């Protein structure tokens, strides 16, 4: 496979695309073909199954350039799998099909997410080169260094402000434009930032925040507004602690559209009868909103709040592009990358673990919810 990938890498970039896609589609077609004929009865099909069971893991490892003992072990495991499959209670070929569908995804998930997560967790308790166990020293370092504490605090500020403000702005906007003329175009205007990359958004907002000396023309819009109002230009991105707030504005700008679209759909789903009943009871618009609409969209609100919370916990691109963490603006995800670049693997891993622990409560909540739903079904 390395030889194939190396050959591929030498081709012009846009030629590589169709080749890799075709190679991959051929692979999937082969899987589907063998899965299709697997459950058929007869000696021929049994032999084909045996051949595939032994040959597939063997060939994959040969292609990956593995060691002869690993290749041999894979072939033996394939053989064992064939026997298990042959004696399966659901009929021969049943496990074979299941494996054909699930194996690619599960294998990639284990190699790409499960094992690395375990390794990072271990790494967090090791020294910078990953050679020695040092207990909680990395975490102690994080929670004693003023700069590192600042990073954690900043992340908390991000999580407190962003979901609330963007959800409220999105909700207000969704209510304002509900059933108004040109609703579709109103939506597009606020929703558009979602398609823009964080890097692009960061450049857009850095341009807004640029400062020029007071005796020159301002080229940043915000400073021009300050000057129009009679103030002196401020370098918004270098004045701690407010610079973090100016970075948060960028994420709010991006996420409000998301909140608005989901909440707008939820608002339109509130039964008209309830609204009419409230009207008959003589409520005004505000009472109707707080007593009928908001309870009606409660669960959509929770969805939006949690999703944006996760996004703000993991925020990286904005901080990286706008300040690279200078002037006390760093956040956990950015510091994790910085430490990695400084060859401080242990500390980098410690930051990753802290991030994971902050996200974890939401994971548990989600897993519970999905389990409940599956039980209902």
């Amino acid at each position, binding site marked *: 496979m390395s030889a194939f990938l190396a050959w591929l890498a030498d081709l012009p970039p846009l030629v590589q695309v169709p080749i890799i896609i075709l190679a991959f589609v051929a692979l999937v077609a082969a899987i589907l073909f063998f899965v299709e004929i697997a459950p058929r009865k007869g000696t021929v099909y049994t032999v084909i199954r045996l051949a595939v069971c032994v040959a597939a893991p063997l060939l994959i490892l040969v292609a990956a350039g593995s060691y002869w003992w690993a290749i041999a072990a894979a072939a033996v495991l394939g053989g064992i799998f064939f026997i298990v499959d042959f004696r399966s209670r659901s009929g021969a070929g049943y496990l074979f099909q299941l494996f054909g569908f699930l194996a690619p995804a599960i294998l990639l998930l284990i190699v790409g997410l499960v094992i690395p997560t375990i390794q990072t967790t271990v790494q967090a308790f090791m020294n910078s080169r990953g050679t020695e166990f040092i207990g909680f020293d990395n975490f102690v370092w994080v929670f004693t260094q003023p700069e590192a504490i600042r990073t954690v605090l900043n992340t908390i500020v991000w999580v407190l402000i962003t979901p609330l403000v963007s959800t409220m702005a999105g909700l207000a*906007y969704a209510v304002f434009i509900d059933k108004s003329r040109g609703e*579709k175009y109103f939506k597009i205007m606020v929703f558009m930032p979602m398609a823009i990359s964080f890097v692009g958004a960061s450049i857009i907002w850095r341009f807004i925040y640029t400062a020029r000396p007071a005796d020159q023309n301002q080229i940043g819009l915000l400073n021009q507004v300050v000057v129009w109002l009679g103030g002196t230009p401020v370098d918004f991105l270098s004045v701690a602690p407010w610079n973090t707030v100016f970075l948060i504005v960028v994420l709010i700008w991006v996420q409000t559209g998301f909140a608005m679209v989901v909440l707008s*759909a939820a608002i339109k789903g509130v039964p008209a009868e309830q609204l009419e009943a409230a009207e008959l009871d003589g409520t005004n618009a505000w009472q109707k909103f707080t007593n009928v609409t908001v309870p009606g969209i409660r669960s959509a609100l929770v969805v939006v709040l949690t999703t944006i919370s996760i996004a703000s916990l993991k925020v990286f691109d904005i901080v990286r592009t706008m300040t690279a963490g200078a002037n006390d603006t760093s956040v956990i995800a950015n510091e*994790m990358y910085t430490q990695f670049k400084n060859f401080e693997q242990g500390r980098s891993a410690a930051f990753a*673990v802290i991030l994971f622990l902050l996200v974890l409560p939401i994971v548990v909540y989600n897993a519970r919810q999905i389990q409940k739903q599956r039980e209902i079904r």
Partner: protein
Amino acid sequence: MSAILPVKLPIDKTTKNQLRRGKRRQEFVAAKRTKKRLTSRGATAAALVIAVLWTVPTFGLFVSSFRPAQEVRSTGWWTIFSNWGLTLDNYSEVLQAGNSQLNLAGAFINSLAITLPATLLPLIIASLAAYAFAWINFRGKNVLFIAVFALQIVPLQMALVPLLQFFSRGEIFGFPVVSAISDAGGYSQVWIAHTMFALPLAIYLLHNFVSEIPADVIEAARVDGAGHGQIFFRIVLPLTMPAIASFAIFQFLWVWNDLLVALIFADGAVAPMTKLLAEITGSRGQDWHLLTAGAFISILVPLIVFFSLQRYFVRGLLAGSTKG
């Protein structure tokens, strides 16, 4: 993480129906405009203010990218009528800008070459797995599915560094398993990394759609002698195509806009535009005529995708919250 992940939280049944109802109504909103308007004049004005506030930043970038370098440096873009001048020089200059290994034009090609396979590969693998989770019964299915679901909230940061080491050494827990992938160079590392990271969400969302296919259809095919391979290819795949398409848009935008994975896995000559732009922002942060043009090139493709497929985009976003 990108901003455009669809909602992935499960919600209760009433809300699900409610959101679905709202989505449907939303699409007919134009027809129903005759209904009495609930919004007041003040609300419309407030909406207008927000809309303008949200659009002005992008508009300013767009205008500035066409102004001569001298003008961009000395005057604000809102004075364009008193300091008139339009040019395409910024674009031709920024396409040549970059570092010793790569210019922005090359990075644009790289972005395309990274994004297209990194969109298709995870979708195909995920739809295979989604089919198994939906239509093949096996012991431990629920536990495995919840495990996959839970994986989607493991932050990328947890996986990046060990995965990079795996690519460069081919070792798992210190045992050599495969030959190093990074020796091959090229895009393979980024493709594989994006594919791995996309799988949990892709499997979860596609499973919701695949499992909603009526059981009768699958059963009928089975009676007619189709095996799982044929059922998947000839029934499930065509029927879930709309869902696959709307997720493909997200994955495309996600990969195109990604910076973190690119910083770790795409070095030197294979870097995508986001990475090079972030670099230029650091090294030439005051050359606004270049930055504005460069940023506009990088957001052009997502904006085209967004405006042409806007309906699917919104539908896909809501799919995440309405399917449970």
